């Protein structure tokens, strides 16, 4: 079976900084992979390249065997790939529900309708339903600018879920989310994508989350893969402990 994501020999440099150094990685369908790594190891860069935001200096990236070489984030998104962002990327002046409504109209739409009211076709209900799943019903009609950082994070994730992606990439979904919420957040994500047996790649610094939700862990360090495999094994790896997870884990 073709892997959902197949990365071959990808390199990326920013000046002297090596953000990806001959990365190769296959992710089969349905797997939940956690990317861990020191700060600046290249996790976000990896996500950026996979989604077409950055072009690798060398190497290839294929999604279900299709090379995404020159594709823009929009065209990658249309292939059924969604992501969330380390720093939430939202429409600050729009309300939470409107943010989701935009995401909903982006699904499958090659052209947007002039006439169809933004809240028609159950779009609004769907937005409310998604917000409800994250316990944010109250926030529906408040502009993002009024919302706290953690809430923004949740809405950012909710937007990524709208498309029911075949590959979902989450960049630090629980950082800034309060302790009470973080497991719930992950549960909701898993729940939201489960019906389609979606593949999830999530960048995470919280090892509780990693060990609880990941089928596989990939540890990055200075653009290289330090370790890749079963969570238990990777988290025990001495190099991983030294550079990433620290002694107490």
């Amino acid at each position: 079976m073709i892997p959902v994501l197949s990365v071959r020999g990808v390199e990326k440099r920013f000046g002297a900084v090596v953000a990806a150094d001959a990365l190769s990685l296959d992710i089969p369908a349905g797997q939940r992979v956690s990317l861990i790594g020191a700060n600046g190891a290249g996790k976000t860069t990896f996500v950026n390249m996979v989604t077409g935001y950055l072009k690798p200096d060398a190497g290839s990236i294929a999604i279900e065997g299709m090379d995404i070489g020159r594709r823009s984030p929009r065209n990658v998104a249309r292939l059924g790939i969604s992501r969330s962002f380390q720093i939430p990327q939202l429409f600050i002046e729009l309300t939470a529900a409107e943010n989701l409504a935009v995401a909903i109209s982006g699904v499958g739409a090659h052209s947007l309708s002039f006439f169809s009211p933004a809240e028609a076709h159950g779009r609004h209900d769907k937005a409310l339903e998604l917000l409800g799943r994250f316990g944010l019903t109250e926030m529906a009609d408040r502009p993002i600018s009024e919302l706290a950082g953690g809430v923004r994070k949740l809405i950012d994730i909710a937007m990524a879920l709208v498309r029911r992606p075949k590959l979902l990439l989450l960049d630090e979904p629980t950082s800034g989310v309060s302790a009470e919420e973080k497991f719930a957040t992950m549960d909701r994500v898993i729940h939201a994508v489960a019906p389609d047996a979606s593949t999830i790649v999530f960048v995470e610094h919280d090892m509780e989350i990693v060990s609880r939700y990941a089928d596989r862990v990939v540890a990055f360090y200075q653009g290289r893969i330090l370790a890749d495999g079963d969570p238990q094994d990777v988290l025990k790896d001495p190099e991983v402990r030294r550079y990433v997870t620290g002694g107490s884990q």
Partner: protein
Amino acid sequence: MKQGLHPLTMIALVAAATLFGRALPTWTLSLATIAASNALIALGIVVLARTGNVSFGQGLFFAAGGYGVALIANAWGLTDAVAQVIIGAVCGGLLGLVIGPLIARYSGIFFGMLTLALSMVLYGALVKTTALGGSDGFNVGRPSLFGMVFTDTREADFMLYAVSVVTTGFAGIAATILFRSELGLASLAVRENNLRVEYLGISANRVITINFVIAAVFAGASGAFALMAQRHIDPQFAYWTTSGEFVFVAVLAGYQSVAAVFVASMALELVRSFSNLYLPNTWQLVLGVFLLCVILFLPRGIGSLWVGNRRQKRRATAATSIATEEGAAS
């Protein structure tokens, strides 16, 4: 559902505004015609501004519409007002279709300055074209309506007033529908964060282009009105100060409602005219102070005098809808 006015109510309002012209003194009729035509182009600017781009070169389409109509009128003797408006809109729209895709990738000041540059290139070309009267421009004949020629000046003025108010009114209704639509919401999203829009699978350039063309159509039609109202056209139509003034009308109005745009452009014309009459030596000063006062005391524009704070209204209707009141035609 309580989300601004129903389109039917708006149509009624437009009709009322048209009939109201009967009661206006003659000199205000042509003023109101100009105000309506300025409102139309400013409305286009509002449409475009919702994508986060302010055009400082709407004069380009204004002139395209005006010159297109004037040339056709002089060449074929086509004087029908409605036909002229359509020609103007088409001229503006076609040019918008050509330019829109090229310019959609620019943003902020660069978008503004590029539109300005393009309009100034047209200005330069027109100034050079002695066949079109160069910088002095040329005149066209009076418009007619459905074969009727109006010789009585009051009737002629009222006809123009009616056509321009109805057109602007319908443009306003169309804009309201647009603002509430999927596309309208996506436009706001593009303004906020076009990267995320792209990540959602929507083409930000395309959204901008569509809004750009709509603004160009409005500007072209507005050019046709300006031409009909003054029967003269010159390259000043494409000059940057002309474009700038339309932006100012839009800002003064406060992006909130079509009626506000109309009122703002009317107020601007009146202040300018009366200060020129009573203080011919310092009318610019008066106009400047007026602008400052409006910006200072009505930070959300003239429209906020009666449209009310978007946010407060939102709260009142919070549970039921995600209405975008900007579009409310009152």
